[in-house]
C-alpha cells in the first residue's frame, strides 16, 4: 500500500519503469504477460505500479486496479471483484461450478478490454486469497481468452517463509512472458538526489550521508527524513516507528483520533462510516481530516480515506491500547452492520472479532463462510468455519453443526489432516452424528490422505455399525469397492462391488449404484472377464439415463468410456461412447465439467487411432467449455501432443507455456507429460540438448507408479540420444546409463503390472530397445519390426509408422530385404500423410531421398508384408497346437477368448499354457509372448 497524492520525485527508477512497460507490452504466444514487482516495504512498489498504470492508461491499454486486503480473511477473488466494481461492472458471482465462475469473471474483463490489451494492476498480492491466485494463473494461461497483462506488487518479506506465491513465482520465472522484478533500495547517489529534491537547494554532504545510513536507501524513509531535515526538525531516531510516533504527537487531538480510526479500519474507509466511528460534529470532523491530510498521514480519494502507507498503520497498531482498539472496531462494526452486503460479511466478522464481541461476530462469520462456499473458495470458507469454532463455546448447541462444516470444507480444500481433527472433535460430542456416518466420513478423509489401510478399516466399521441405515450401508460398500479397486485388489473389489450393487439396488441412491457398477465393471475387466464388466457398466449408464442427474450421467459415461479406451483398448467404441455422453449432457444443458472430460477422452482416443483432424475438432470443442484446473491442463496437454505431431511449433509452445503457468499453482502428476512433450518438440527442432535436459529432469520427477508415463519418457530420452548420435553429436554417456537403468526398472515393473498396463509398456519397451540398437550402430531392422507389430496390434498408427520408418532405414542401410523395406516406408508415409503428421512425413521423405526410393508410386496399394514365419529354434520345441495358443497369447487374448477362437475349453488353454511355460522356461504370459515375438 502506498503513499498517494503529493509524492516526492521519482528517483533512480527510470530504467525500471521503462523495463516494466516493455515487459507488459511484450506478450507471450498466449497473448498474456505478467510482471511481479518484489521488494521490501517502503521501497516504492506501489509507486511503480501507479506510474506504470498512468503511463499505459488511455493508450492501447485498458487499466483495472485492485488491492488485496490484509485482514487475513478477505472474501474470495476480492481484489479482482473490487477492480471490476471500481469500473462499475459488478460481476454476477453466482455460478454452477468453479470453472463457470472463472469464465464469468473473464467475460467481464473481456468486455472492459474491448479490442485493447487489459492491464490488471494488483497491489499487495502477498495477501491474495487462493481463489485470486488461481484466477491469475487461469488468465495468464490464456484460458479466459482475455488479452491481459498483469502487474502485481509483492512484499519481499512475505516470500521468506512458506508463502504459496514463493513457488508460484519460482515456476513462472522461466516463462518468457513472465518477469519478476526485484526492486532494490536506492543507491547512495540516488538517495542524495532525492534528499536534495525534497529539501530544495543545497544539502550538506554529511546530512545526505546520514539520511542514507539511517534509511538504508529505502525511499519512503528517505522522504520522511528529508522532510524533517527541510523543516529543521531534530532527528533523534532512525527507526520508522520513532519518526512516526514523534509526528503523531504533534497532531491536533481530533486529527489524532481520525488517524487512529483510519488505521483500525479496512481501507478504503468510507466517509459516512468514519463519521460514525469518530463521532465528531461535521465541521470538526472535516477540519480534523484536513489536518490529518496536511500532516501527511491520511490521503483521500473518491472511494474514501486511507493511510499514506501501511507501514504507518503497523506502527500505530502497537500504540493503541487494547481497550481503545476494541472500541474502535466495535464502532466500525456497528457502522457497517446495517449495510450487510455480501462483501461486508468479511469486514463485519473482522471488526466484531477485534471488538471482542464473539457472539455478534458469529452470524457474520457464518455468512462469510457460506458466501465463500458460494464462490467455490473452499480454503477461505474453511478459515471462516474455523473462526466460527473459535467463537463458540464447547457447550454451544450450534458447535456440532459448525464442526461438521469445518471438517467438510477442510476436506474440500485439501486439508485432510485438519478435516480428520475436526471430525475427531465432533465424534467426541454427545450430539455427534451416528457412528456409521462418522466412520464413513473418517474413511473418506483417510482415503484422501492416502492412508488406504486405515480407510478400509473405517469403511468396514461403518458397515458393521449397529446404527447403520440401509442407505448408508450401500454408500459405504460402494466407496469401499472403489478404494479396493484403486489398491489393485481386484478380487476383493469385485466381491465388495457385488455386495454394494445388491444393497444399492434396493436402498441406494443412483450415485451409489453408479459407483458400485463402475467398481464391479473395472474389477471384472481386470480379472480377465471384460464382457461381464462391460455389461455391468452399460447397465449403470442406463440407470443414470433414467435418473437424468448430471453427476450420475457424467460418472457413468466417464467410466464406460475409460474402460473401453483404457483396459479394453476398444478405442473406437470408447470414442463413440464418450461423444454420446457429452452430447447427452449437452442436450440437457448440464454437467459442463463432465462434458469437457468426455470430449477429452474422445480427443485422446482419436489421437491414438490416428484420426488427428477429428481429434483436433474434438479438443477444440472441449476447450470451448473453458475448463480450469486439472481439466484444463489435461486438455492443453492433449492438444499440444497434437500440435507436436502436426509440427505446429508455435501453437505447441503456446500450450506448453500455458500448462507450465497452470502447474505453477500445483499439480505434480502432469509434470511428466509436459516434459515429454517438451522433449518431443525439441527433437523435431533438432535441439538435442534441450530434449535431453527435459527428459533428464523428468527422470527425477516421476512417481513410482507412473510406469506408462515413465515408459514414454524413457523412449523419448533414448530417441533423443539416437537422434543426436545420428546427427553426429556426442551421446551423453551418463544420460544413457540412467535411461538404461530406467528401462530395467520398467521391465521389472511390467512383469508385475496389470495386463493392460503391461501391454502398453511392452510397446514402449520395444521402442526403447530399438532406439538403443540405433545408438549402438547396429542397424538392426528386427527390433523395429517387433515394435511396429506391437503398435499395429494396439491400433496405434503413429508409433507404428515411426517404427516402420526406422525399420526401413535400418534394412536399407544393410542392403537387405529392400522390397519389404520400401513397402514399409510407403505404408508409413501414407499413414503419416493421412494423419497430417508433417514432421514425421518429412523424415520419411528424407530417408526415401537418401536411399533413392520413390514414395509416390503405388504407395497406397502396397501393404506391408506380414512378418514371415521364420521360426527360430526356441519355438520348435512346441507342438502345432501350443504354437497356436502362444500366438493368441502374444496377441493379448484372454484364456477364454483363446478357447473360443480355437474351439477348446478355457481349462485346456490353461493346460497348454502350462506346457508352453515349461518348454520355454518362462513364468509369465509376457515373457512367453516376448519369446514368441522374438522368434516370429
Amino acid at each position, binding site marked *: 500500500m502506498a503513499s498517494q497524492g503529493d509524492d516526492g520525485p521519482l528517483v533512480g527508477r527510470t530504467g525500471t519503469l521503462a523495463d516494466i512497460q516493455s515487459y507488459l507490452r511484450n506478450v507471450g504466444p498466449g497473448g498474456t504477460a505478467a510482471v511481479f514487482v518484489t521488494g*521490501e516495504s517502503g521501497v516504492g512498489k506501489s509507486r511503480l505500479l501507479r506510474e506504470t498504470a498512468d503511463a499505459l492508461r488511455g493508450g492501447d491499454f485498458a487499466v483495472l486496479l485492485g488491492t488485496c486486503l490484509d485482514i*487475513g480473511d478477505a472474501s474470495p477473488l476480492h481484489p479482482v471483484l473490487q477492480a471490476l466494481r471500481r469500473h462499475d461492472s459488478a460481476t454476477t458471482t453466482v455460478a454452477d461450478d468453479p470453472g463457470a465462475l472463472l469464465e464469468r469473471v473473464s467475460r467481464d474483463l473481456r468486455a472492459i478490454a474491448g479490442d485493447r490489451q487489459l492491464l490488471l494492476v494488483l497491489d499487495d498480492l*502477498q*495477501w491474495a486469497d487462493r481463489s485470486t491466485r488461481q484466477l491469475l494463473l487461469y488468465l495468464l494461461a490464456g484460458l479466459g481468452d482475455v488479452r491481459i497483462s498483469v502487474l502485481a506488487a509483492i512484499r*519481499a*518479506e*512475505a516470500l*521468506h*517463509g*512458506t*508463502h*504459496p506465491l*514463493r*513457488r508460484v513465482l*519460482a*515456476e513462472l*520465472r*522461466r516463462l518468457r512472458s513472465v518477469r519478476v522484478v526485484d526492486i*532494490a533500495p536506492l543507491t547512495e547517489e540516488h538517495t542524495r538526489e532525492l534528499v536534495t529534491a525534497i529539501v530544495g537547494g543545497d544539502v550538506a554532504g554529511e546530512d545526505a550521508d546520514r539520511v542514507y545510513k539511517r534509511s*538504508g536507501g529505502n525511499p519512503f524513509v528517505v522522504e520522511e527524513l528529508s522532510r524533517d531535515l527541510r523543516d529543521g526538525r531534530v532527528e533523534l531516531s532512525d527507526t520508522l516507528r520513532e519518526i512516526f510516533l514523534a509526528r503523531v504527537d504533534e497532531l491536533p487531538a481530533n486529527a489524532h483520533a481520525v488517524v487512529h480510526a483510519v488505521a483500525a479500519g479496512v481501507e478504503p474507509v468510507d466517509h459516512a462510516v468514519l463519521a460514525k466511528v469518530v463521532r465528531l460534529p461535521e465541521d470538526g470532523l472535516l477540519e480534523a481530516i484536513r489536518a490529518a491530510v496536511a500532516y501527511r498521514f491520511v490521503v483521500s480519494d473518491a472511494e474514501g480515506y486511507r493511510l499514506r502507507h501501511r507501514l504507518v498503520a503497523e506502527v500505530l497498531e502497537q500504540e493503541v491500547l487494547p481497550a481503545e482498539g476494541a472500541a474502535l472496531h466495535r464502532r466500525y462494526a456497528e457502522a457497517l452492520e446495517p449495510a450487510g452486503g455480501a462483501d461486508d460479511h468479511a469486514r463485519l466478522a473482522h471488526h466484531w472479532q477485534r471488538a471482542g464481541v464473539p457472539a455478534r461476530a458469529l452470524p457474520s462469520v457464518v455468512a462469510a463462510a457460506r458466501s465463500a462456499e458460494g464462490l467455490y473458495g473452499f*480454503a477461505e470458507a474453511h*478459515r471462516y468455519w474455523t473462526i466460527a469454532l473459535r467463537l463458540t463455546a464447547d457447550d454451544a448447541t450450534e458447535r456440532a453443526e459448525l464442526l461438521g462444516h469445518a471438517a467438510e470444507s477442510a476436506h474440500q480444500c*485439501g*486439508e*485432510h*489432516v*485438519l478435516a480428520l481433527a475436526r471430525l475427531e472433535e465432533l465424534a467426541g460430542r454427545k450430539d455427534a452424528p451416528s457412528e456409521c456416518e462418522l466412520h464413513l466420513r473418517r474413511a473418506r478423509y483417510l482415503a484422501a*490422505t*492416502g*492412508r488406504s489401510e486405515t480407510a478400509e478399516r473405517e469403511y468396514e466399521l461403518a458397515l458393521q455399525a449397529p446404527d447403520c441405515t440401509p442407505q448408508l450401508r450401500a454408500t459405504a460398500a460402494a466407496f469401499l469397492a472403489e478404494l479396493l479397486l484403486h489398491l489393485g485388489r481386484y478380487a476383493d473389489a469385485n466381491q465388495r462391488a457385488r455386495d454394494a450393487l445388491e444393497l444399492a439396488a434396493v436402498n441406494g441412491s443412483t450415485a451409489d449404484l453408479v459407483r458400485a457398477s463402475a467398481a464391479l465393471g473395472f474389477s471384472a475387466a481386470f480379472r480377465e472377464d471384460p464382457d461381464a464388466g462391460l455389461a455391468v457398466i452399460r447397465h449403470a449408464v442406463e440407470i443414470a439415463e433414467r435418473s437424468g442427474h448430471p453427476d450420475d450421467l457424467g460418472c457413468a459415461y466417464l467410466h464406460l468410456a475409460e474402460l473401453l479406451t483404457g483396459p479394453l483398448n476398444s478405442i473406437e467404441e470408447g470414442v463413440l461412447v464418450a461423444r454420446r455422453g457429452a452430447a447427452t449432457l449437452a442436450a440437457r444443458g448440464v454437467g459442463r465439467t463432465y462434458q469437457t472430460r468426455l470430449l477429452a477422452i474422445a480427443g485422446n482416443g482419436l489421437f491414438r487411432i490416428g484420426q488427428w483432424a477429428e481429434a483436433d475438432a474434438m479438443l477444440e470443442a472441449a476447450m470451448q467449455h473453458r475448463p480450469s484446473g486439472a481439466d484444463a491442463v489435461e486438455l492443453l496437454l492433449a492438444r499440444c501432443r497434437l500440435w507436436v505431431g502436426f509440427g505446429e511449433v508455435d501453437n505447441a509452445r503456446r500450450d506448453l507455456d500455458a500448462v507450465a503457468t497452470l502447474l505453477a499453482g*500445483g*499439480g*505434480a*502428476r502432469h*509434470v511428466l507429460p509436459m516434459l515429454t512433450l517438451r522433449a518431443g518438440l525439441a527433437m523435431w527442432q533438432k535441439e538435442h540438448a534441450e530434449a535431453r*535436459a527435459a527428459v*533428464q*529432469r523428468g*527422470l*527425477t*520427477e*516421476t*512417481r*513410482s507408479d507412473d510406469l506408462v508415463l515413465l515408459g514414454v519418457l524413457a523412449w523419448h530420452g533414448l530417441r533423443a540420444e539416437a537422434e543426436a548420435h545420428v546427427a553426429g553429436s556426442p551421446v551423453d554417456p551418463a544420460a544413457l546409463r*540412467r535411461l538404461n*537403468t*530406467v528401462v530395467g*526398472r520398467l521391465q521389472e515393473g511390467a512383469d508385475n503390472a496389470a495386463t493392460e498396463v503391461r501391454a502398453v509398456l511392452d510397446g514402449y519397451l520395444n521402442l526403447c530397445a530399438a532406439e538403443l540398437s540405433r545408438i549402438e550402430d547396429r542397424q538392426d531392422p528386427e527390433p523395429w519390426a517387433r515394435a511396429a507389430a506391437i503398435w499395429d496390434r494396439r491400433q496405434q498408427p503413429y508409433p507404428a509408422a515411426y517404427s516402420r520408418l526406422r525399420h526401413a532405414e535400418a534394412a536399407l542401410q544393410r542392403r537387405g530385404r529392400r522390397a519389404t523395406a520400401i513397402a514399409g516406408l510407403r505404408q508409413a508415409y501414407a499413414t503419416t500423410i493421412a494423419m497430417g503428421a508433417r514432421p514425421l512425413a518429412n523424415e520419411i521423405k528424407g530417408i526415401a531421398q537418401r536411399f533413392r526410393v520413390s514414395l509416390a508410386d503405388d504407395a497406397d496399394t502396397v501393404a506391408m508384408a506380414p512378418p514371415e514365419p521364420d521360426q527360430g529354434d526356441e519355438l520348435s520345441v512346441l507342438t502345432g497346437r501350443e504354437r497356436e495358443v502362444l500366438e493368441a497369447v502374444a496377441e493379448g487374448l484372454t484364456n477364454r477368448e483363446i478357447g473360443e477362437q480355437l474351439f477348446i475349453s478355457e481349462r485346456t488353454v490353461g493346460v497348454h499354457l502350462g506346457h508352453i511355460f515349461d518348454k520355454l522356461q518362462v513364468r509369465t504370459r509376457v515373457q512367453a509372448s516376448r519369446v514368441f515375438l522374438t522368434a516370429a
Partner: protein
Amino acid sequence: MTQPIWGPVQRQMSTILQEHPDDVPAVVTQLQALQDVLCQVPPLLNSNPLADFNKLYLAITENVLDRLYAGKFKDPAFLSRLDVEFAGRYFDALRYWTEGSPACPGVWAGLFTRIPGPDARPLPSAVAGVNAHINFDLPFALVTTFDHLGTDPIDGSDQHHDYLQVNDIFAEEIPGLRRGYLDRWQLLIDTMNGDLDDWWQGEMVEYTRNVAWRNAQKLWAIRHDLAQLDHERRRLDRTATGLGKLLLSPFADFLQ
C-alpha cells in the same frame, strides 16, 4: 555498500545467483559453479567456512541426484521439488548477503561473516552450514513443497520415508566421520537437531533427526497466518543462530 562483499569475485557471484534452478540437475550445476567461485574468495581461498559447507552440500545433492536417477525414492516428484525448494533458500540467503540486504536470515549471516576469517576448522564450518540449512531452511522448504503438491505432511507416508532417507545421506556424506569420533559426532547431530532451548535447560533432548519434520508440521498448521508464521520464522532463526555461533566458536573444536 562501498566495498563489494565478495571482493574480486563479486560480479561472478551476482551472475551465478541470477539463476534460479528449477530441477535437481540444475541445482547441482549451480552448486558446482558456486564451489569454483567460493574457492577464490580471499583471504582464506579454499578453506573458507562457506566453501567447506558448499562442498559438503554439493556432495549431498549429487548423492540425492544419483538416487533419484536410480529410483531409490518412493515419491521422486516430491523429493525433487523439496530439493529444489530447499536449495533455493540457501541461494536466496546468498543473494540477500550479496546485495547487502537486511533480509538475510541471521543464521546464515553468522556463517557468511566468518568467510574472511578468523580461520574456523572445516568440519565445524560445514556443520554450521548444515545447521542453518536443516534447522532453519528445511521446515519452510517442506511446507512449501507440500503446499505445492497439494498433500499433507503425514507421518509414515511415502514422502516421510523419502525425507528420512535424505537424513541418512547427510549422515553419510558429512566428512570426518571417523570411527573414533562417532560418539561425539552423534551427540552433536542429535543436539543440533534438537531444540536448543531444551538443550540448554538440560531438559528432554529429542534424540531424533525428525525435528525439521516436526517443525514443518507445526508450520503447516499455521501457514495461512502470516503474522504467526513470521513469528515462528524469527524464533527458528534465533534458535539456529545461537547454535551456529556455538558451532563456530572454539567449543566446537572437539569435532576435529
